[in-house]
């Protein structure tokens, strides 16, 4: 971390000496922390500085924050970078001040030269990233070896066909946005009027509009814990399909959540899975916490009226029930439809008695089995997606 032996500069000194250069360095620091800073934003930041009182560090802070940040998630990253570069190294006090308490902070803590320190920080993984993999990681999560190789070719073909049908079924959502065409929709006055001009004002033809079809977005959350191991071959087909289809996001969860989509883009499925297994991904299940993580990190960008959420899990949860219920309620509220595939349904005697499953069930639109091909084949018919 900070090198306390380097000669200290007065906080804000670098900024006052050469604001433009300082803002440039802030840009670099923000980029190093993963904030996408566009050229237009650094230009905007320069303008901001010029219309602010340069002696007031809080105004500079707030102004640059408005220029550089573009979402709530950016704020803590910006706060950290700003104060670090400003000459403050104590992260804890930075956070308190970032909430907006009044009054400037005097030249306080000795701090390292900002330059070298930033370079150092840039090589550290950011807090956000480690959070994405969850904090529940423990060495106790043992490695589980499984082979997905024994899926027969016939089965693969059938699954492919099934997924194709599923996608076809899913692609029937109608948007609220209208497009020209159709015979029964509302009259398209604009085009009708335009065509009436050519018939001397007689409305010979009434042109109409209809609701456009929008492709849905699919979010698949797969339980990869030990209890779900038997069904992993089906799961893998799901994952495989995600690589091909356009708007599908895949997640794996056991005691924590992993966003699989980027992995599947980069490498072959088997490699990706092997790497994930090496991270200890399959002992125990904390569905509630995993879903909460999903909501926190991806809910805003992935859920919506176009989104279909598919959860593949047996609902045997080791975590608390309350977070699971809360998360499910939130997901159902924000997604178009929630489908829960539970392989245990294959047994006719099965009743969803597991606490987790019982808690989740009221917030599920379609509850179906996924234990074999026959069960999977039924699924597209269950997904009736009217307008």
């Amino acid at each position, binding site marked *: 971390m900070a090198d306390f032996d380097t000669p200290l500069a007065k906080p804000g000194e670098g900024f006052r000496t050469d604001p433009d250069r300082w803002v440039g360095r802030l840009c670099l620091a923000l980029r190093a922390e993963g904030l996408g800073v566009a050229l237009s934003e650094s230009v905007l930041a320069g303008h901001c500085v010029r219309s602010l009182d340069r002696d007031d560090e809080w105004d500079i802070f707030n102004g640059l*924050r408005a*220029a550089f940040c573009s979402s*709530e998630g950016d704020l803590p990253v910006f706060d950290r970078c700003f104060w670090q570069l400003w000459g403050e190294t104590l992260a804890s006090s930075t956070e308190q001040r970032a909430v907006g308490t009044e009054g400037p902070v005097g030249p306080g803590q000795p701090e390292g030269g900002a330059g070298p320190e930033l370079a150092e920080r840039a090589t550290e993984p950011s807090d956000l990233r480690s959070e994405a993999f969850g904090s529940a990681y423990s060495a106790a999560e043992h490695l589980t070896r499984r082979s997905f190789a024994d899926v027969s070719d016939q089965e693969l073909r059938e699954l492919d066909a099934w997924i194709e049908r599923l996608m076809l079924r899913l692609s029937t959502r109608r948007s609220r*946005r209208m497009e020209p065409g159709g015979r029964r929709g509302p009259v398209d006055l604009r085009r009708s009027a335009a065509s009436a001009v050519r018939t001397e004002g007689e409305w010979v033809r009434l042109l109409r509009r209809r609701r456009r079809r929008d492709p849905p977005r699919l979010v698949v959350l797969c339980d990869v814990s030990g209890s779900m191991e038997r069904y992993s071959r089906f799961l893998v087909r799901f994952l495989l399909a995600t690589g091909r289809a356009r708007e599908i996001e895949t997640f794996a969860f056991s005691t924590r959540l992993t966003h699989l989509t980027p992995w599947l883009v980069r490498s072959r499925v088997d490699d990706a899975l092997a790497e994930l297994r090496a991270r200890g991904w399959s002992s125990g299940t904390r569905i509630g916490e995993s879903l909460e993580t999903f909501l926190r990190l991806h809910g805003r960008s992935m859920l919506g009226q176009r989104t279909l959420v598919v959860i593949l899990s047996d609902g045997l949860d080791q975590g608390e029930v309350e977070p699971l219920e809360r998360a499910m309620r939130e997901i159902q509220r924000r997604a178009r439809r929630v489908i829960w595939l539970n392989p245990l349904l294959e047994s006719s005697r099965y009743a969803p008695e597991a606490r987790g499953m019982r808690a989740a069930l009221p917030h599920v639109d379609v509850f179906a089995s996924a234990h074999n091909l026959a069960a999977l084949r039924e699924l597209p018919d269950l997904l009736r997606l009217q307008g």
Partner: protein
Amino acid sequence: MQPGIEQTREGLLSQGYVADRALATTVHLALALEKPMLVEGAAGVGKTEIAKALAGWLGSDLIRLQCYEGLDVHTALYEWNYQKQLLRIRLEGDSADPADVERTIYGPEYLLERPLLQAIRSEDRVVLLIDEVDRADEEFEAFLLEVLSDFQISVPELGTIEARTRPVVVLTSNGTRELSDALRRRCLYFWIDYPDADTELAILRSRLPDVKEATARDVVGLVQGLRAERLSKPPGIAETIDFVSAIEAMGAESVDGETVSAALGALVKDPADFAALDRSRIDSLLRPDADPPEA
């Protein structure tokens, strides 16, 4: 010249809007740099109110564009006055050259201005509020980008219309959909959080000048406590104000468990939250406050 940060803060305050220095700084910059401002935050923290207060303070008209899915150019920008066009076509009769007629009826006098065009064509500076931009779809967002970067609009039949005065643009978003980076980059960004107790008290006093001090304090304490609970819809400032009004209207002497339960509908709007807040929970939320009313 441009109002400074403190002037901005006072200006908003004169309209009953309590802004902290950070918000005032962003508004000041938005005015000075003529940049749109994107305001995000939970429901009921006063995002829309900023635009209203801003318009009131600047003495400008407020033009509001409420976004929704399927919002299209004809609703946001312009539409042709078909009735008038038709009438014109009839009047011209058979003798007229169709090309001439067409040129006439697609002239400015047959144009109906919708909010965006209105804001651009206005002689005086207006405040343009683009409310809940996350509800509009990506296509509209892309269109908005063009308007916000150049402050000009192209109408195919008329050509390009440039802004006479640049409007002050405030966009709000509730985060139901992630906005594109391109749009975010065009804007100065501000995240509004729930106010702390002191700010909320100040807001209450400014909005309801006749409120009893004890009532205001008790309610703010309760609301701040409620926000710390895990409710699915935590009460916003608007709810706090409604709630105080309700309590005052009931003529309650003090804010006790009974009063709160009776007026809870003004504060909590979700059935599950409502069910979770029974008397004992409410009492325990009221108790850490200054004077426990229950004997």
